């Protein structure tokens, strides 16, 4: 009987702890820049959804591609129609894990650098990526800031020859994600 009680108590503890382990994305900004001196191609997206488990380090991110907002509406149309093909590929996704999660102390407030490894799926093509993120934690919130580069060719996004000089070969991505504890 004693063992059964302790088992139940452990189970309850696990459930309680796991609820606090899960963090939900509170606010986010993703910016990409694919411009060259000739053309300023840059867009923002604030409509991402993501969950993070700080116990296991697991992270899933889903980005609605149609929500990238450009300064020029025609660029946005071209992005959706010709490059990202958002009707065919509505979402970009990332599924991965934070490396060495055991050694990360989420209670500390000093910025730390972590590495997130996983699969990034853009334009229907999944690529293994390892992304450096700077973490800042304060008052229950976890904020991650990252900058990285994605070559368009990795995701089979073709640049038409006539526009080659206008669109960069490599897209610079910067992202700021703020997570809060997930409450049902």
């Amino acid at each position, binding site marked *: 009987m004693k063992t059964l009680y302790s088992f139940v108590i452990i189970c309850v503890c*696990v459930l309680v702890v*796991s609820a606090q382990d899960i963090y939900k994305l509170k606010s986010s900004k993703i910016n990409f820049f694919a411009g060259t001196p000739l053309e300023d191609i840059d867009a923002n997206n604030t409509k991402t959804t993501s969950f993070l488990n700080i116990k*296991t380090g697991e992270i899933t991110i889903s980005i609605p591609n149609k929500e990238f*907002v450009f300064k*020029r*509406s025609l660029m946005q149309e071209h992005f959706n129609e010709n490059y990202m093909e958002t009707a065919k590929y509505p979402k970009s996704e990332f599924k991965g894990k934070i490396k060495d999660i055991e050694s990360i102390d989420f209670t500390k407030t000093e910025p730390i650098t972590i590495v997130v490894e996983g699969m990034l799926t853009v334009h229907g093509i999944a690529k293994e990526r390892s992304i450096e993120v700077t973490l800042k934690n304060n008052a229950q919130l976890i904020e991650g800031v990252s900058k990285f580069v994605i070559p368009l060719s990795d995701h089979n996004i073709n640049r038409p020859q006539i526009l080659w000089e206008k669109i960069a070969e490599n897209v610079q991505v910067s992202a700021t994600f703020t997570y809060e504890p997930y409450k049902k």
Partner: protein
Amino acid sequence: MVLGVASHAQNLDSLMQAESKPEKTLITATFKGTKIVNGHSVESPSKGVLQLMFLHRFGPLNEPLYDFLGMDQATIRIGLDYGITKNLAVGVGRSTLQKAYDFYAKYRILTQSKGYRAVPVTVSIVAATAVNTEKKQFDPLLTYSETGLHRLYYTAQLLVARKFGESLSIQIMPTAIHRNLVDNLDQSNTIYSLGVGGRVKLTKRFALTGEYYFTPENQLGKGFYNPLALGFDIETGGHVFQIHVTNTSGMIEHHFIGATNTDFFDGSTSVRLGFNFSRVFTIVRSDKGKNAW
């Protein structure tokens, strides 16, 4: 604990699913241009975008070498279109035919969407007016005195379009045109026409287009025909080139619907080359894009 951890793997995915709200995706870019060929498409310039458009219709192709494919009898319309809001656009144009000035407003009432509360079609309405500014010829047989009002034309159009997948778009356009003055007794002042247009996208930047307006013969009068146009669109960055063959030399509604005087199927004496060329300029940049970061 191991069990607890193992269950997280599914957890995040199921949480993502639970969080995803019913989404509505707007279907955009039903047509590449604001015109299918001669007439309006449901598309307008985006908010804050100015579009400059050159339209040319050459002469008939019956003496291609002598007339240089009809270029010697080219008619032109130069137009400016501007997107005031996301759904409202206005435009002004000047045609060589009748030295006509035309003005229009186009408003998108519905936008096709899929997903949550899907809308099957995109619907726009167009109200247009045109004025003939050609100098009056003295006509001793004229039994009335012509006033400025006699030179006005009005058009109302309902445009209903649907994009079937990525490659096929179809549009129907019931149209009413009122002409304050017509030349012949057998022409109706008000004509009702039904247009059908479409686009087949072959690659990301190349599409075939077609457009036809049917107006009953008894309204058009003798010697006037329904306009048919077949062509293709080429898109390069901020430009759209539309090249086509058609039997009309008009580029505003009361010209190509009401006053096309050759039959497409007469062959080379009626069919002519035409092209539309547009360039867009972003006058006001999207605020959303600016402030989001």
